[in-house]
């Protein structure tokens, strides 16, 4: 710092005013983060305020609006479709997230055993999670076709008569969950990285103390992996609650609203029924539901996530 000021003194002042290095850094700092500031103020903070405002209106955005206070929220609590959408989304999330965690962790554990051609296995398991989107939803619609679908043909091969999947009220969401499990590769990579980050001396010390493989797994591997599990849980819960493309493309929310997810319901209310006020109220409900569950995970993490000093 001394050098800097010394240097600056030798430069002739071309302007009438002088800025201290600290002031210059303040200006430079704000200039650099300007894109985020504009984004945050203009497209997040203001938009949130407006969103709250719109949620208290009855408006189609074309013919005007009417202030209705909390009526949209009151209506929502009595709307059977809202509760249906909440149940569907919660069912999907709380089945997919634990199953996906177990699957991803299992694959990562297998891949962590010094297997040959690791890169090949990793790619095969990871690829499905990269190609998310409409094409994959269409592919799975075909996969889950009761008669010709690969899944039911595979089950028939094993002597099992597969269900009607997307055509059945009780099997449509399980179909989505299977599709979701196919995309477990992203979490798997994170677990694999976490596993590779566990220092080997820990295992060596445990062996000297006579620990067997099972004990090492539960007393070292799992505790050391809890930060990764925690991160994955949060991201997957938040992501799963916002599931949309599958139900929009594959079932349109049917049969009989069995796959009506929160975001699909919100989308319909806003962009098909043009009830933007009600849809905004739904968005806030979704926000608070996600918040409650993430806070629950965050709070509980204090008792089960193990942070080793070095691992940050």
């Amino acid at each position, binding site marked *: 710092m001394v050098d800097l000021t010394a240097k600056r003194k030798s430069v002739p002042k071309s302007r009438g005013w002088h800025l201290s290095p600290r002031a210059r850094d303040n200006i430079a700092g704000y200039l650099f983060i300007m894109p985020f500031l504009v984004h945050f103020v203009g497209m997040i903070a203001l938009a949130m305020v407006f969103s709250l405002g719109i949620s208290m209106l009855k408006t189609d955005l074309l013919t005007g609006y009417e202030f209705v206070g909390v009526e949209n929220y009151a209506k929502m609590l009595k709307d059977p479709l809202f509760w249906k959408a909440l149940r569907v989304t919660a069912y999907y999330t709380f089945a997919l997230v634990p199953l996906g965690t177990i699957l991803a962790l299992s694959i990562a554990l297998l891949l962590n055993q010094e297997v040959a051609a690791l890169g090949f296995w990793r790619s095969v398991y990871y690829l499905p999670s990269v190609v998310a989107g409409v094409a994959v939803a269409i592919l799975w619609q075909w996969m889950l076709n009761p008669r010709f679908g690969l899944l039911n*043909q595979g089950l028939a091969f094993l002597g099992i008569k597969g269900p009607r999947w997307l055509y059945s009220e009780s099997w449509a969401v399980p179909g989505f969950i299977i599709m979701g499990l196919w995309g477990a590769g992203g979490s798997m990579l994170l677990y694999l990285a976490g596993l590779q980050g566990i220092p080997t001396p820990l295992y060596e010390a445990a062996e000297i103390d006579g620990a067997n493989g099972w004990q090492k797994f539960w007393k070292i591997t799992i505790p050391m992996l809890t930060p990764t599990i925690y991160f994955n849980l949060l991201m997957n819960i938040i992501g799963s609650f916002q599931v949309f493309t599958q139900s929009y493309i594959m079932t349109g929310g049917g049969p009989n609203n069995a796959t009506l997810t929160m975001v699909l319901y919100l989308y319909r209310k806003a962009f098909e029924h043009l009830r933007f006020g009600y849809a905004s109220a739904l968005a806030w409900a979704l926000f608070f539901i*996600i918040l409650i569950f993430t806070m629950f995970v965050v709070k509980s993490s204090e008792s089960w996530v193990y942070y080793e000093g070095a691992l940050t």
Partner: protein
Amino acid sequence: MAAGDRVQATTRSETDWQVVLTKAPRIFGKIVTYVILAIGAAIFALPFLWMVSTSVKPEYLVYQIPIVWIPPELDFSHFVSGWKILPFLAFYRNTIFLTVVNIIGLVLSSSLVAFGFARIRFVGRDWIFLVLLATMMLPGQITLIPLYVFWAKLGAVNSFWPLIVPQWLANAYNVFLLRQFFMTISPELDDAARIDGAGWSKIYSRIVMPQAKPALGVVAIQAFAWNWNSFLGPLIYLNEPRKFTIAIGLSLFETQQSENMGETMAMSLVALVPVLIMFFVAQRYFIQGIVISGVKG
């Protein structure tokens, strides 16, 4: 298991037959591992293979039970006929345009913001960074409708602006990822450059950015996959088929042609191919990205 090696190391002094005995379960374990991995990999890969198979077989084989995996003759007519039903060339052009523009915008804006947070000490920096982290938790649905109103008032619905501007204004997740990476680049060179009279913009462009290429690659590749697959945004903002991206074009195609599975699979494959190619070309970046963002989170 990795632990197996260590067990062996401690028993090196034992006689050969004892080594064989301790090795036997290990070899058996290896075989089991590979068998499970292979079955799992087959299950994960089959949907893709089936998609390819469906798209290149003649119509009468598509609904054949049991499945004919390799058709007697390859039939690419689904690709030709499907491509003509909707303006797929325009969908492709629009998607490539949006993806390229947004990769540039996202890399540029996110790296500038990340540089500010990582390198410059300014009043309120840590607080603003906390705000940035908090926005990562915010579901986009909250701002969806007000932003739609905003763009509608500007008359920008059915244009690419609503899909471009936000990405030129940085994205919290990418800022976080890049900031973490920038922090690992030693500031010694910065100091040297400052002594030589370089300003922050020079340090950004000449010192930090060149060293951050791997992380920038990660952001670019994720931006590519995200933009290519993006669905809800284009669905809301674009309403003229000639402006459609491949994702909503395909969704439109599916509602019109769902009877013809061969064509539907062919066009889905056409939509996926760029992502698949990118995955195999730049896999390293995909994998690094997920590791950087996850482990340091």
